[in-house]
Structures are given as C-alpha cells and as structure tokens.
C-alpha cells in the first residue's frame, strides 16, 4: 500500500522546479503543515509567503504577485480557500486573468470526522461556474507529479484539488502521456462507462474488475481535468457504451456528474447515474467509510451498473 500522499508529491515537485524557476512562489495560510509545504518553506524561504489564517488576503496577494510576474501557488485547505475567498477567485484571479494556482488541500471528505465546516463538497460546483479557471484532480501520486508540472507550464488561473490521505496507485509510474484537458481511458469496455476523477478512480477500477466476473465490460475513464472537460471523450463513451455512470467525491448537485450530464444530454442522451455525496451535511468518518455509506464502493457500483445497463436495454 502506497504511503506517500499527493500533497507531499506536489511539494517535492514544486521544490524541484523552484530551484531553477525563482518566480515560483508558494503561499500558505497557516497551512504549511497540513499542505505538506514545510520542506518548501524551509528550503526556499525567499520564495515562500505566510499570510496567517486569511484566505481572502492570500488570494488577493497571489493575484498581485502574479500581476508582477511571479508564479504563485496558494496551498490552503480546499474548504476555506474556495468558499471563503470565492470573490477574490472570481475577480482577482479569473476576471483579472492572473497566473494564480490554487492548491485546495484535504479536499472532498478528507477531513471526514471534522464535519461539514471542513468538507469541501461544493468547490467544483463553485469554481466551474467561474470562467477561465482550469480544474484538475490527480488520481494518485504519479498523476499529482504530472499535474503539478503541467500547472507550472500552464499560464493562467488553475485549481488543483488534493485529498489528504495517501491513495492506492492507479498508475505504475509517472511515465505516461498526461495532458491537461485530455481524459485517460484506463480500461476499455462497451457495456457502460464510469467517468470519475481523483480518489474514486481506484474504486471504479476495482468495480470494473468485479463487473467483468459477471460479464459486464465497463469502460473506466479518468477525467483528471474537470474544466475544460474532455467533451469528445464523454460523447464517444456515450455513443460506444450507451450508459454512463459518474462518481465524484463532491455534492451530486452542480458538480462533476452535472457537468458530464450537460455534455451527454446535448449531444448523445443515454441513461446516466450520478454517484456522489447527496445534498446533506456528509456523515463524519474515514474516507472509505463515508464513500461506502453513500454507495461508492466496488460492490455497490457493480449493482448500480447492472441497474443502468437494464435501463439501457429495456428503457426506463
């Protein structure tokens, strides 16, 4: 079992790049520990800015740095970074088109037992409605590295969503073609497609293995970039597999499933199932427990897949 968490990989990747690129600046809001950015702060004190617990200020400062040629990465808990400073993200980052990268750490239900104040299950809904912000969520530590490198190269607003705990590897190494905005089909199939991102990619892959035992060929797509969405990949999946299930560590309202549905209904309507956290304060607990409670387990995804395939064959 992998014990390296994605935020640690992000820090190491930025440290590697910051040596050559002195414009890379990391900002934390009393979050260098929780963001695993302490090594960066220690090694590059002149490229590190602490703002204290002040999320509005940290985003405004980052915008000012970016407008002066810096490449700021703001590492702060996703729940506060996106909700508390939503207006700064909208005006100072998106509207002003500043090269600010927001690293939302411990996103989703990572802070499970701490309750709704610390969950970020609305961040995708919020940020995808704001123009001009790239949203990326790596599925494992290898993708975290590639996504960080891609974000450094990408000039413009970006948000990377990171979970708190180490997740099992999806990839064998970082030696694969990762492009922002280009989804990756991890497993091919024609019975249905599961489209997901982040920590639930592994669950979807495990579900697909179970499904194979009962003769269901499930396509699994890692949509690591949520905005811009790889629409072509979604339409292809709808055409070729005839049924789509989305799985997200986010509210089922206005989130990833909704984004996929917008593409599906307007291009190639097929039966869909949106799995995620319902419209309620999420139950506290460890990620795996919370996922299972809301039906995001390999076993339950299998039974949902069967229902979906039934709809595809026999209608509603």
């Amino acid at each position, binding site marked *: 079992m992998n014990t390296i968490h994605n935020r640690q990989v992000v820090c190491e990747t930025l440290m590697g790049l910051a040596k050559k690129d002195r414009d890379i600046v990391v900002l934390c809001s009393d979050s260098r520990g929780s963001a695993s950015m302490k090594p960066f702060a220690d090694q590059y004190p002149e*490229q590190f800015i602490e703002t204290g617990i002040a999320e509005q*200020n940290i985003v405004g400062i980052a915008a*000012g740095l970016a407008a002066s040629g810096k490449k700021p990465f703001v590492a702060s808990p996703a729940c506060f970074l996106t909700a508390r400073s939503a207006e700064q993200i909208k005006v100072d980052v998106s509207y*002003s*088109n500043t090269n600010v990268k927001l690293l939302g750490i411990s996103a989703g239900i990572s802070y499970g037992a701490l309750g709704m104040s610390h969950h970020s299950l609305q961040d995708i809904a919020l940020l995808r409605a704001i123009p001009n912000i790239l949203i990326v969520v790596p599925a494992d530590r290898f993708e975290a590295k590639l996504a960080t490198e891609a974000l450094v190269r990408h000039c413009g607003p970006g948000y990377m969503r990171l979970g708190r705990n180490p997740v099992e590897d999806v990839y064998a190494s970082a030696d694969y073609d990762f492009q922002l905005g280009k989804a990756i089909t991890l497993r091919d199939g024609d019975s249905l497609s599961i489209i997901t991102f982040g920590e639930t990619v592994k669950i979807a892959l495990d579900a697909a293995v179970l499904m194979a035992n009962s003769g269901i060929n499930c396509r699994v797509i890692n949509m690591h970039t949520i905005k811009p969405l790889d629409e072509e990949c979604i339409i292809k999946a709808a055409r070729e597999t005839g049924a789509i299930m989305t799985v997200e560590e986010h509210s089922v309202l206005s989130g990833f499933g909704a984004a996929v549905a917008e593409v599906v209904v307007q291009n190639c309507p097929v039966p869909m199932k949106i799995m995620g956290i319902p419209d309620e304060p999420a139950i506290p607990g460890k990620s795996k427990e919370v996922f299972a409670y809301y039906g995001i387990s390999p076993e339950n995804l299998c039974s949902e897949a069967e229902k979906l395939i039934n709809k595809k064959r026999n209608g509603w």
Partner: protein
Amino acid sequence: MENMDYDKKLTKKAAKIRRDIVDIVYRSSAGHIGGSLSETDILVALYYKVMRVDPGNPDWPGRDRFILSKGHSIDAYYCVLADKGFFDKKELLTYSQFGSKFIGHPNRHIPGVEMNTGALGHGLSVGVGMALAGKMDKKDYRVFVLMGDGELAEGSVWEAAMAASFYQLDNLVGIVDRNGLQISGKTEEVMAIEPLEDKWRSFGWNVSVVDGHDIPALCEALSENRKVQSKPTLIIAETVKGKGISFMENNPKWHHGVMSPEEYKKACEELDRMMEVPL
C-alpha cells in the same frame, strides 16, 4: 517659483479633469460622479507628479503601480488616463455603451489599468502582492492603492493591512479618500470607521492626514521623502464628495446621480470658471 507655477498648473489640470468627468457622466447617464470628484486631486497628484509611469509603454517593468480599489470611481480614472495619453480620449465616447471595454469599473483591457476591481476590499491585498514581488525582485517601484472610506468596513482590508506591516512593505502606499459619505449616508452613521488614524497606526502603518484637495500637500505626503523605513504608508486624504460642483458637494444623492440638462449646464459653468484661474 517654477514649482509654484507647476502647482497652479496641476490645480488647473484638476479642474479640466473634473470638466471631462462631468462630460462623460452626462453623456452616458452612468458613472459614480461623487467619488470621482472627491478623488480627482489625488489622481492628479499621483499621475502628474508622484508616480513614474510611461503612457507609451504602460507595461514598463519599472513603473509605479496604481490600483483603484474603490473601482466604482472610474470616471476620474478614465479621464486622467486619457489625458495622460494612455489611450485616445475619443475612445471614452463609448463609455458604458454596449460592448465597450470602458465599463463602469477598471479592467485590464484598458492600457494603464493594473487590475480588475469593483468588488470592494480587494485592492490592498493585491497591492501587498505587488509590493512583495517588488521586494523579492529588488525593484524600486512603489505601489499605490486608493480606497474609499465606506470600503473600510470590509474585513479583507484589515487582513491586508496586517500583512503589509508584517512584511515591512515601505514600498506600499495606501490612500483613503475620506469623503465621509457612502451610498446610504455618512460613514459614521452607516458603520463608523473612526478613529481611523489610530486604527491604521495600531496596524503598524506610517499614517498622515492631508487635505485631499490641496495638490501640493498631496504631492508632498505621497512623495518618497515621506516614506518611513520598513513601514507601509497610509494617507488619509480628507475630501469632499462631489468636490467642485456646488450642488453636488457633500450630498450622498450624487454617489451615482445623473444630471439633468440644467444641472449639467450649471456644473460646466462652475468648472469653466475654475479653469480660467490665471497661471
């Protein structure tokens, strides 16, 4: 003597800018005229004496930066930038019209504008970021942020105020256009901000209070000589909302009032008289 002449020229310049403001506001039936007239002398001091800018090369890396945090007071800003030559004044004919880039708040499509503003309480944080970048790169540019007094009720202003003194940003100058009025009435009746000097001083700023319509005094207060090592500077510019037009002065109705033809005529007459002051 030369300085005195220049001061008089700037006073005359301010009257001309006010005349331009009245024109674009009347023509478009838009804008926030009260706050634009209160900040006019501050902008004239900054753009004609204090700040290093190059209208022909607005992105010149060594330029001083200006952020209009009270973004709604755009009329004065557009008129000053046009007069300085950042863009052709004729372009202001499209102000507030369908599809125009000259909208009611600053945006970076306009040459000379550093940051899109309009949501209050953002500018000082952005200024802190620009000043920090200047320190990191060992550049000597200064950053000026003009805030409204009503805006100071936003908590984010004080987050930025704390950070600016913590990082000893003596290259950052905050200016408060202290006209005492906001859209609903007097600031002290809507949400009191006094004692304002004490507040900024207790946040670690080098504070001075100045007559915000006395251009030589503004230039002096804003000059690099008045900088205190390791401290950000805050200038409380005491101003009159609607300054220069008798019936607008100190009347919150003119926060974003629209002039009748008679009012426009009267405003023009008053300003034309001010422009006739001999050098």
